């Protein structure tokens, strides 16, 4: 409470005791300087700003649970005879990797829980990175000066997927071995050098006895170290740039409004770590994931129906399923388009497009300003529509990756499904693009109308001549401001293709392309109202049947029953 009296920390007993060590540290490290800048640093608050935190905390959960698992896991492909607690596999020859995974699951108390926490957290890690990335994309938060942080994010997503795949392969069960077999086929399809990469990676012919130790090294050392480094850079840049915020009264491009790091933000973020950890632990308590014992040890002549990768590889898997069987021979070499294009090209194209997008957009819009205010998705209809189109294509690939499960569960013909997805992969994104753009522009028009003509009150009036009309009341000024707090559209001009002397300009073709793209980007987008429009509308609203100011500030529309509500 504001009236409470607090003893300053340095005057409390604890504070006096701590002063010595803290002073000792600061004498040597000078941390007070950094702490002074950051302890009360402001973070704006919105639920969508916490999505990245889910990824951060699930990574911490992965580090903790993964460390536990390494205490027992044996990354060896050497053969052993299983003699653990799981009866149906007793006496079977299997690798140490698989046997030790079974031991963790059945003979180490809490081992199964930790395995399941680790796997759920991994699935959640990649999922939350994607959700976070979508939030950043659709609100334009990647714009200057945050392009580098966007690139770091793309890098983290790539590493997260590779890390997940490496982990999925380690237990050496039938499912993970089938996944490795697929990767082997994928590597072989790399033009010209495929067999070399295969032999070097596997240490000889598939499966060899080296791939699991090598993946293990990558999984517990190399990739986590890279991820950790990139996360550190990601967070440092976040602190340096300060978080973006939604526009609103008092929230401008030049300030950041929110809660200080200490205590509110630290408590909320710290509390969220416990929530994420607790949530994954509860998941692991009640939902089974990757029951390796049910699959049996890897054997290259066995397979199970419903062989799938983890969900984040589903897109790639789906594209491989959709691809027609194209393969050609020239220069005395075999070119496996059927595997290389969807397997290597699909994710390659996705990540390239993601990495380049901020720069492409900047080239089109020629917008060199710093942006700290977020854009509502509807206010950038082309970007939003492109994003939704991309999500649709990704979704088709995803669904195709589970086409056998869809076929059995919905009693459909799997070949017909494949054809639907083959065509849909090209058609659905276009449809999604057109619809999304239309919806965005429609929403912009509605905002425009609400600002200029007020909102519909639900109050019906009868005029003396017998006509009925609905009263509109102006929005509170704060809401009006929020709706109009965005940047004006630039003037669209045709590109100058000739200079003042009538000679074709050297960069003419590039400029022309840009002009066309600019037109495409801004086509149909509604600018916010001008000052004149607002003045005119205010007068009009004032004139109109002598209202609406009489309704009063407290009026908040009418309920379904027709009773006026107040704010």
């Amino acid at each position, binding site marked *: 409470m504001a009236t409470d009296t607090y003893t300053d920390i340095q005057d409390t007993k604890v504070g006096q005791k701590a002063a010595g060590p803290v002073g000792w540290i600061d004498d040597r490290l000078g941390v007070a300087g950094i702490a002074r800048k950051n302890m009360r640093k402001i973070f704006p608050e919105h639920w969508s700003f916490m999505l990245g935190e889910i990824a951060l905390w699930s990574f911490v959960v992965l580090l903790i649970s993964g460390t536990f698992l390494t205490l027992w896991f044996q990354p060896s492909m050497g053969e052993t005879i299983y003699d653990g607690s799981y009866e149906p596999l007793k006496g079977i020859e299997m690798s140490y990797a698989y046997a030790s995974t079974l031991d963790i699951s059945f003979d180490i108390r809490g081992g199964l829980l930790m395995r399941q926490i680790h796997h759920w957290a991994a699935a959640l890690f990649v999922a939350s990175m994607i959700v976070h990335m979508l939030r950043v994309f659709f609100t334009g938060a990647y714009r200057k000066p945050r392009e580098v942080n966007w690139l770091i994010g793309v890098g983290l997503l790539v590493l997260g997927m590779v890390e997940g795949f490496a982990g999925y392969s380690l237990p050496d069960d039938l499912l993970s071995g089938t996944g490795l*077999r697929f990767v082997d086929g994928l590597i072989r399809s790399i033009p010209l050098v495929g067999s070399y990469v295969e032999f070097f990676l596997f240490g000889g012919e598939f499966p060899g006895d080296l791939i699991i130790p090598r993946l293990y090294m990558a999984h517990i050392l190399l990739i986590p170290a890279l991820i950790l480094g990139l996360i550190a850079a990601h967070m440092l840049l976040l602190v340096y740039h300060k978080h973006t915020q939604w526009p609103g009264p008092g929230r401008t491009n030049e300030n950041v409004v929110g809660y200080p790091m200490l205590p509110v933000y630290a408590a909320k973020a710290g509390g969220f770590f416990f929530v994420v950890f607790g949530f994954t632990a509860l998941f692991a308590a009640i939902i089974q994931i990757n029951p390796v014992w049910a699959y049996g040890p890897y054997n290259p002549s066995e397979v199970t129906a419903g062989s799938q990768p983890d969900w984040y590889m589903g897109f790639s898997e789906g594209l491989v399923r959709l691809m027609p069987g194209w393969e050609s021979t020239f220069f005395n070499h075999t070119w496996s388009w059927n595997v290389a294009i969807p397997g290597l090209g699909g994710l390659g194209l996705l990540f390239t497009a993601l990495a380049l997008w901020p720069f492409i957009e900047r080239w089109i819009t020629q917008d060199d300003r710093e942006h700290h205010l977020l854009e509502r998705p509807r206010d950038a209809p082309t970007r939003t529509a492109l994003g939704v189109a991309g999500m649709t294509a990704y979704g088709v690939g995803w669904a195709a990756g589970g086409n056998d499960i869809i076929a059995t569960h919905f009693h459909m013909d799997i070949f017909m499904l494949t054809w639907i997805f083959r065509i849909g992969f090209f058609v659905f994104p276009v449809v999604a693009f057109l619809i999304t753009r239309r919806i965005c522009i429609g929403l912009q028009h509605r905002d425009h109308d609400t600002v200029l003509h007020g909102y519909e009150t639900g109050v019906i009036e009868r005029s003396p001549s017998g006509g009925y009309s609905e009263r509109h009341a102006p929005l509170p000024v704060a809401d009006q401001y929020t709706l109009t707090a965005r940047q004006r559209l630039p003037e669209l001009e045709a590109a100058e293709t000739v200079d003042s002397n009538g000679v074709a300009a050297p960069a003419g073709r590039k400029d022309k392309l840009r002009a066309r793209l600019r037109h495409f980007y801004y086509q149909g987008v509604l600018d916010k109202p001008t000052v004149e429009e607002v003045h005119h509308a205010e007068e009009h609203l004032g004139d109109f049947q002598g209202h609406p100011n009489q309704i009063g500030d407290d009026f908040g529309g009418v309920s379904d029953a027709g009773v006026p509500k107040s704010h």
Partner: protein
Amino acid sequence: MSELEKHGSDAQVAEPIADPGLPEHAYRVTDVDEAQARRTERQISLMFGIAAVLALGFAVAYFTIDFDETFLGWSAQNFALGATFGGSLLLIGIGIIQWAKKIMQDHEMVELRHPAKSSDDDRTAVLADLNAGIKESQIGRRPLIRNSLLGAVGMLAIPGVVLLRDLGPLPHGQAHTVWKKGMRVVNDISGLPIRPADLEVGQLVNAEPAVFFPAEGEDEAEIHGHELLAAKSKAAVIVVRMRPDDITPDAEKANWGIDGILCYSKICTHVGCPISLWEQQTHHLLCPCHQSTFDLADNGKVIFGPAHRPLPQLPLGLDSEGYIIAMSDFLDIVAPSYPELARDQKKLDEENNRGGA
């Protein structure tokens, strides 16, 4: 506040609606009602209390519940450990957040931003320092040092790359499998040899070459361990029996079967999944990984899906005891395609005196 208003007024010119500035702070119930605040305090500490009890419960569950005990058909141990551990974490998290939401001050505060770029002064100073460094090092005046150093450092890439050479052997032997003339085709797992009479029309046998199983009087097979896995990943086969009338073999393959018994590689030519989803009435073989579909009555041709090459067929014969044997190794390369496949196939065809596949 005053700074904020100043900033608001800068943008005001072009804005159709002027920035009304931050709204006045509205207080929470816990700010104005101490009784409510006390209730919240008790609520939060109750959560922490339960969390502590659950953590104790974890230890109790760890030492008292056996893995085999079940709860709702799940492992009771896993459930109890997860529920206590997860519950404890979750309650601590919710408690802390509730504390932040209800008790901690929630006045919104304003901080000014600064452009991401450094000041012009800094930029100039850095450039000056950089130039001074370059000048003092004389790197521009003495290109010999510069260029030879660049060359030497560049050459360091060589040990870096060469060191990786022993990651694995050079690609070899992709064209051959362990099959050879006279090797029996035996049932997988049991290792039993097969006679044609053992097979009915519509039968499928998941089979392997006999070398994967111990010969009579031996304890261990010729091939074992990971060598066995590598060999299996190319040599696994399926033997199927169809009505001879249903089969339309290529001229070359007319004698590769025995009364409608044909043998195909089990390894998909797409990315190598083992396939045995054989429909005995349609003769179609479906790969469960990517749905490539092969027609076993028609030379293993691809009829759907991403595979390109037909499934290689193994020529069959009978040995003196009437058991099914291979008449040679595969004449077409098995397993997924690789860049040198075309070249290796040509070589293989020459070895087998086969005119263009």
